[in-house]
């Protein structure tokens, strides 16, 4: 006798959805949304009950399912509903199956160091004369790792930049405003991508706080996982022309 509940752990929401579709022996082109939604949610409940972290990805699909299920109660045209099910559920599933199969095909090939083996550099050949414009055997990740190592060795704040420019909050606010004028909205971290030192980073941040405080910039986060977004709320693009640093920035000064 096994346990009554055998809990598969699924890689992601699409995996779980496929499992439910197979389990119910239904056609992927004719998914009984109400049933599948209930089972999907029940599964998430079990995961929660077992203290398994339900990743946000699962919840996104859950809300899509609930949304579709609830719409089916409305007197929308049947065609419209079917269209939505197809676009939101069936199509991503088909695409997923297709790529999952492709992954399987890849894995069925004669893989190096699993099924077949190449010669290793014979050491008796190595070291017999070298250089003369040798190529380099490094990859990007080794480089990144090296940089991370260096940065981790250093205490935050001790990082010195040879750039001698000192940034003022005023200059940074102007830069932020210019960015926003150009693009309308930017991501929070974009503010700092050009900062070369901790102090510059801090000045950028202070400038942002200042702008928010004065109501010139709105800050919001579209979803929990996404980065914070900044939008301009300073009257915008009509007066674009030469507002460069006089108009708003004059206010900022104080």
């Amino acid at each position: 006798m096994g346990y009554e509940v055998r809990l598969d752990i699924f890689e992601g929401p699409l995996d779980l959805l496929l499992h439910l579709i197979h389990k119910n022996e239904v056609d992927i082109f004719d998914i009984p949304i109400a049933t599948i939604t209930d089972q999907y949610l029940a599964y998430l409940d079990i995961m929660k009950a077992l203290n398994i972290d339900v990743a946000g990805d699962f919840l996104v699909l859950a809300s899509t399912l609930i949304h579709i299920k609830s719409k089916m109660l409305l007197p929308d045209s049947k065609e419209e509903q079917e269209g939505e099910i197809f676009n939101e559920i069936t199509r991503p599933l088909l695409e997923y199956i297709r790529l999952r199969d492709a992954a399987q095909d890849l894995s069925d090939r004669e893989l190096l160091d699993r099924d077949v083996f190449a010669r290793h550099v014979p050491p008796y050949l190595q070291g017999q004369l070298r250089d003369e414009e040798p190529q380099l055997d490094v990859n990007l990740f080794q480089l990144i790792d090296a940089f991370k190592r260096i940065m981790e060795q250093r205490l935050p704040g001790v990082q010195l930049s040879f750039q001698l420019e000192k940034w003022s909050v005023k200059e940074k606010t102007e830069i932020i405003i210019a960015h926003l004028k150009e693009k309308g909205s930017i991501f929070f971290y974009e503010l700092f991508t050009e900062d070369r030192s901790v102090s510059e980073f801090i000045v950028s941040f202070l400038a942002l706080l200042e702008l928010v405080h004065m109501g010139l910039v709105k800050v919001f986060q579209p979803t929990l996982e996404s980065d914070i977004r900044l939008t301009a709320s300073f009257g915008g693009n009509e007066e674009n022309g030469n507002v460069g640093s006089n108009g708003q920035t004059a206010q900022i000064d104080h």
Partner: protein
Amino acid sequence: MDKPLKLIIEALLFAADKPLSAREIHGWLSEETQANIRQALKELEAGYDAMGRSFVLKEVAEGYQFRTRSGYSPYVLRMLKTSPTRLSRPALETLAIIAYKQPILRQEIERLRGVDVGGILKTLLEKGLIRIMGRKNLPGRPLIYGTAKRFLEVFDLKDLESLPKLKEIKDFGFDEHETGPAPSPSSENRK
């Protein structure tokens, strides 16, 4: 050149630790034409295939490399005492997406797989299977991913074109770029 070209090339392939292309070989044997080198490679490939030894010359990653035949892997693995190259299923799926959809953004991979792939991208980058191709002109300038040459080597592919074709998603007016042989009616059972 006092040795037959075919055998010189064989010696190079034998002593190399990566696949060699006709172009690279030409770099070391500039007195020969690339056409001759290419011809010699083809002959070597066919010759080894016919010889029935435990290794063959294979065309892979836009070059040629001697490799053991797959039947011998249990013994070689015993000797090397390594576990065979293994990619987890999520890693393999992510890699497949990148291989077929490149150039591709992380965001797009995540949409297709339905889950976060940050850690997996790191693994694939570390294994040298994928590479960063550049940045997309979008907010945040996201990185663009594609497969690296090592991907071809590991997965026994001559080049990206020899990736097996994606299976069709039948019917339903899918606006996919792969349009293949006659779409059959709906609710297709895949394999």
